[in-house]
């Protein structure tokens, strides 16, 4: 009897040890994953109407008024028409639109970074924006060839805390690196920008002259530097999972949809609350202002839970 009990106990101990070893081996890989960042989502969705209803009117009003966007717009004199068009169109909807140029232009004013190298110039602009942020906690980085709808950007980040690191846009993968495409516009929360500006000091992780023998594009470079600080690219999406940041024009996306969803072209195309498009001509951008901020069918009311007023002194919105 005793020997039976003894062998049972031996069995339990051996079985337990075996289980321990097996689970230690399997959790070893998952432990390394969760150590990198407890904020590791791959997409960030706008708040749904139901989610917003959980806020009181007072809270929503506070969020509404508190969200302010600093637009970092990287221009060059050789792109003067786009520069002027952006100045005249969507940038008026930024709380603080700031144009950073590679060299001064006689025609338009901007902060002259006096820097020809794209990556160095971007670093300078981001550093300047961080230092001059004031109360603004959200940063939108774009080129003047992009068209943005800032109200929809605000809606996307409405319930997100800018003291958390957010790095959003059209997120794509290149090998192991997930990054946000420049053409679709890049959104950074205050915390993300803070960490970025800090890592700029680290020549090892984030060299000023860019890494490797071949030049990485600025958007990939940005992703590499941010990754060192524990900030990862996330895809900005609406409540249906549709991407909000586009690197193509409306025309181009509609064409794609005509090919892919011929019976449901518009529904299958782009989000109602898209934030960016890219690749339109300056004239098309002027038409977009009309299409976005004016053109609509009489009698359709949306009862949105937020309120954004038209900017002062503007006649095309």
């Amino acid at each position, binding site marked *: 009897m005793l020997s*039976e009990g003894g*062998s*049972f*106990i*031996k*069995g*339990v101990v051996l*079985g*337990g040890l*075996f*289980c*321990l070893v097996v*689970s230690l081996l399997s*959790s070893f890989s998952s432990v390394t994953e969760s150590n990198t960042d407890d904020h590791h989502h791959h*997409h960030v*969705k706008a708040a*749904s109407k*139901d989610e917003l209803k959980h806020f009181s009117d007072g809270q929503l009003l506070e969020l509404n008024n508190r969200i302010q966007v600093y637009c970092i717009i990287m221009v060059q004199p050789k792109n003067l028409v786009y520069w002027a068009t952006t100045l005249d169109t969507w940038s008026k*909807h930024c709380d603080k639109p700031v144009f950073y140029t590679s060299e001064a232009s006689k025609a338009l004013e901007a902060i002259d970074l006096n820097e020809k190298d794209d990556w160095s110039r971007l670093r300078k602009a981001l550093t300047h924006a961080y230092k001059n942020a004031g109360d603004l906690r959200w940063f939108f980085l774009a080129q003047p060839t992009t068209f943005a709808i800032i*109200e*929809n950007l*605000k*809606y996307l980040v409405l319930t997100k805390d800018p003291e958390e690191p957010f790095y959003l846009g059209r997120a794509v993968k290149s090998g192991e690196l997930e990054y946000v495409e420049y053409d679709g516009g890049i959104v950074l929360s205050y915390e993300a920008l803070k960490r970025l500006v800090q890592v700029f000091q680290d020549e090892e992780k984030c060299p000023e002259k860019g890494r490797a023998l071949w030049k990485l594009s600025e958007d990939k470079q940005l992703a590499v530097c941010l990754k060192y600080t524990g900030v990862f690219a996330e895809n900005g999406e609406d*409540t*249906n*999972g549709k991407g909000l940041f586009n690197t193509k024009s*409306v025309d181009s996306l509609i*064409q794609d*949809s*005509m090919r892919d969803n011929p*019976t449901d072209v*518009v529904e299958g195309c*782009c989000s*109602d*609350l*898209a934030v960016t498009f890219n690749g339109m001509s300056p004239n098309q951008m*002027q*038409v977009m*202002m*009309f*299409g*976005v*901020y*004016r*053109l*609509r*069918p*009489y*009698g*359709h009311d*949306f009862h*949105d*839970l*937020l*309120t*954004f*007023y038209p900017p*002062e002194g503007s*006649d*095309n919105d």
Partner: protein
Amino acid sequence: MRKVRNMSTWIFTMGMVTGFLSLHLLFSSMVSVEKVNNSVQGIKPGTGHQDPPAGERDNKTGNDTRILCWIMTGPKNLETRTKHVKETWAKRCDKVLFMSSVKTDFPTVELNVSEGRDNLYWKTIRALQYIHQHHLDEADWFLKADDDTFVVLENLHHILSRHDPEKPFYLGRRFMPFIRQGYMSGGAGYVLSKEALRRFVKGFSTGECTHFSSIEDMALGKCLETMKVEPADSRDEHGRQTFHPYPPDYYIVRQPSRPRPWYLIYDHYAPVEGPGCCSDFVISFHYIYAVQQYVLEYLTYHLRPYGYKYRFKPDEKAQVNKTENINLL
């Protein structure tokens, strides 16, 4: 003795299984607690498109007036153009007729007229006679459009709500030359009241109107003038145009101050170039092909700035002055 040894092996194995399973259960209950703490805040999709379904309209948009759309097309355009019109704005007409020279399952109505610009007025006359004969009671207003016109029906309803369909009126983009009271651009589309339609058809049956020209819009304008149908002003409360014979970029793009370009020469009301050209509640654009039909559909009915308080609010009686940003210089 062999029996005893099998027994103890069996017990030993039982022990191993017990030990393994109990520890495994212990570990998995610990891990699931961790997972809950790290969960993502993604909420299930909600919204979707919020405007009222196509059939419903409240009183604001036109007191239940019905619009019959007749669209001038031809066999070679059905696949390349008309199909996309049918997929987009034509669905919002209370009744839609596609007028062609050949009857098909599209469906198209066969008018006994061949295709071609020279036959355009004949086609128009036959189309109006056909509508008068078969569909007069199905609508209050009759819209003519081409297979490359884009129309926002809700905005047409809004403009028409000012008028009585039993009175002889027609609306569109008013041109001034050739006809004393002017005429409406064919390309931009035009709308006849029920009474106007009756008078047009009557004009041809009594001989007061004839096919004196193949220039459809001008000739129609002449007939309506003869039959005492009045051209109404289709501009919005700020005097901005609603019907447009060309695509949006012809009008909206800012231009330096200049004499009227060729495409604005005929305008009866002094045209404005740049953002003040066009009403928020646009009714039509012309020369809109395939891709552009869907683009305009997307821009009009889908893409919008969330929470935006539009500047143009024709229903508000008083213009409220926002005191927040008064500049005290």
